[in-house]
């Protein structure tokens, strides 16, 4: 699992690649939390190169969404979600908790 962050005027775009499971979810969480340390609570997560995500990753997403939406200060958006991961997110009932965009830049523009 790897992440890279690109800063935009109104939000940060985090690209996550590889596999997020119980062994890598902490590193994924830390990559999201690094934005909060800089006062950025509007995040787009680009999943185009994400191969796999288990419930450990879903929990990290949920924690980040809670943190961002507190005091209406921001939101986590998902972009380019691979079909298998989208199906698992649907099963977990996460679809209503995250707005999802096809293109990462479309999500960036909406924030």
């Amino acid at each position, binding site marked *: 699992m790897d992440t890279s962050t690109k800063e935009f005027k109104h939000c940060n775009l985090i690209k996550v690649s590889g596999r997020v*499971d119980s062994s890598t979810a902490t590193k994924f969480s830390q990559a999201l939390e690094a934005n909060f340390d800089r006062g950025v609570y509007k995040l787009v997560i680009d999943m185009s190169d994400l191969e796999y995500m288990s419930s450990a990753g879903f*929990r990290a997403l949920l924690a980040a969404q809670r943190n961002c939406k507190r005091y209406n200060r921001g939101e986590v958006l998902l972009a380019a979600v691979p079909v298998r991961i989208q199906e698992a997110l649907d099963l977990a009932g996460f679809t209503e908790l995250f707005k999802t965009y096809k293109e990462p830049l479309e999500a960036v523009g909406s924030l």
Partner: protein
Amino acid sequence: MPALTFPASFDSLDEIREYVGKIARDAGFSDQDVYSIQLAADEAASNVIEHAYAGNSKATFELSCAFRNDRLVVTLLDHGKQFDPSKVPQPDLKADLSDRKIGGLGIYLMRKLMDEVRYEITGAGNLLTLVKRKA
């Protein structure tokens, strides 16, 4: 059914997903089913590592995977704390963001992804059996 022994460490998860994924693919399951089987096996193993052994990385568990009579059967046998997934309450998937529970999701997914999930306490240890039927 031959079983592989894995250390009770999250580092085992990659190998477990590859192992069950190969058997499922060779058995002719669809890409969607292969992913489901890998995810269910990962969630099951993660639970054993986290709950049965609570991070004791010297412990081990056994995992087997075989395809027979149109059914793929994955078993996990551990000797740790008893942990019955059927006793874990189902998460409320309609709850608001603030009320969403962080736990129970892995077990819920495991049950939704597989056709059968059985937990037994046997003389050999705690046995979890996951079954996926080939459509």
